[in-house]
């Protein structure tokens, strides 16, 4: 009886893996989960969740133009989307640099303007609207082998850059004034970090879509920040939470027929709520003693 129970469990776990699209989906979801979680640690620590959300919406016109130009080739969509994200982040920093417009105002202006441009473009190419809706809500099960390679290479590059500039990014996030007095190239580093955020967002589009990608940036990192006060450990924990949530979300989507992007984000959110509640209970217990 014990063995039949175990057999059932094993087949429950392996059944989805019989499909290649599930294998590819799992791989991509875990990769982008890890990349977003690591970049997201800086996003959370710098209090830039709004910028992340804005960048994810601001790439819509890039996707629309990319679609028109290449009829949906995912590599070219990637570059168009990335171009739109970089353009948006550079315009946000240019608008807010003089101090006459506050940064969150600049973000709001650029984000809504770019998103509107994207919707306008999409509405003119109605026949493609169905495919583009995949980018709003993700289409992890439509991942091709080529997408897997692209995601793997891009993820690796982002993680390597973070590793290479770890001490500078950390210093810049903790004490930007020190970065200036140490005569670090603070402005290029600042731009590099926001480009990395943009790349993480763009590479996640297929997994969770424009509308939900900010959750991949913010939720695992925020969960990890509740659990540790060590940045390296926070990054590892966030990556583990995101990768785990990707697996759980995809299985949920397979067995319960839930939209995959939403399922992944809900798994992240569930972990966050559990950790947060656990800490509330713990601190109230400590308060009573």
């Amino acid at each position, binding site marked *: 009886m014990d063995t039949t129970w175990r057999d059932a469990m094993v087949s429950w776990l392996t059944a989805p893996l019989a499909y290649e699209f599930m294998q590819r989906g799992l791989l991509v979801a875990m990769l982008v989960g890890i990349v977003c979680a690591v970049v997201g640690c800086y996003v959370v*620590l710098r209090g830039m969740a709004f910028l992340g959300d804005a960048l994810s919406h601001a790439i819509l016109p890039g996707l629309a133009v990319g679609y028109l130009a290449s009829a949906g080739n995912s590599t070219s969509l990637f570059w168009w989307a990335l171009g739109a994200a970089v353009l948006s982040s550079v315009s946000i920093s240019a608008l807010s640099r003089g101090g006459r417009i506050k940064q969150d105002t600049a973000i709001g202006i650029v984000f809504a303007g770019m998103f509107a441009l994207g919707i306008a473009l999409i509405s003119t190419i109605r026949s493609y609207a169905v495919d583009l809706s995949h980018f709003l809500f993700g289409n992890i099960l439509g991942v091709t082998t080529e997408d897997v390679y692209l995601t793997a290479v891009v993820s690796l590059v982002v993680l390597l850059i973070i590793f290479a500039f770890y001490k500078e990014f950390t210093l810049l996030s*903790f*004490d930007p004034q020190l970065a*200036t007095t140490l005569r*670090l190239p603070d402005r290029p580093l600042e731009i590099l970090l926001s480009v990395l955020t943009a790349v993480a967002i763009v590479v996640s589009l297929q997994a969770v879509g424009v509308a939900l990608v900010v959750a991949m940036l913010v939720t695992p990192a925020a969960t990890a920040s509740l659990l540790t006060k*060590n*940045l390296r450990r926070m990054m590892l924990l966030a990556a583990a939470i995101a990768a785990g949530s990707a697996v759980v979300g995809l299985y949920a989507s397979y067995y319960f027929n839930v939209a995959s992007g939403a399922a992944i984000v809900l798994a992240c959110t569930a972990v966050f709520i559990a950790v947060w509640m656990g800490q509330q209970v713990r601190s109230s217990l400590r308060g009573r003693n």
Partner: protein
Amino acid sequence: MLNSLFPAGGKKHIHPESGQALQLRNLTVRFNGLTVLEDLSLRVERGLRVAVVGPNGAGKSTLFNVLAGLLQPSSGEVRVHGHLPAQYLCLAYVPQSSLMDWDFPVSVRDVVMMGRVGLIGLLRWPGRSDQRQVERSLERVQLSDLANRQISQISGGQRQRMLIARALAQEADLLLLDEPLAGLDIPSQEQILSILADLKQQGITVLVATHDLELAGDHFDRILLLNRKLIAYGTRSEVLTVENLGLAYGGHMQVVDTKQGPIWIGDIGGHHGHDVEGRHG
């Protein structure tokens, strides 16, 4: 290749051996038509401890920002050991600790190591000599046993000492400390003052912004009295005169004649508005 793109990274600066730590000539700073510092001219010898005093809004923080190269003066000349501020590496600016994010997930040792990021250079990780320098800096401010603590788990005085250790790890020979003693208890203040005395032995120039005139007189080699303009710079007896203090503090300062000599009583500002007194003999 990146290092040639970003020339500051990893470059060791040659510390000058002697001479003036600071030279200001007709330094003026304006914000939106408002003059914050006006026509400051000053020379500070290397290795002195200088207290920068003046009422709130006198321009102390602005002066530090200019010296640190964070702010461009509207006119006039600034030289730090003969260099333009933005080119000088061996200068450490310790801002008011209330402005920092103490929940950031780094340890005391991590923060001290940050002082070496410029010297380590881009695309390199801290080596053994960097670690040795960090441990030595922690030792000098007596924080070795707290090195692994997260920075929210140490006291205000320990935070201030950690920031001084960071400046030492940076191998700075000019330290700018903005209100390092504010809000600290007496033992913590004395600990920091004794560290400053120790720095003097090594020829490190220290500028400290403070509200506390008595402390400035007792523990520093020079006093720089500032109120938008330079009121006076010199030793205690040269600077702390009734005329100078009247000029600096204006209506906020009262001079009361007693049998022991005049006592100045004033609301020197700060968050507590505490009274400060001193003697003129």
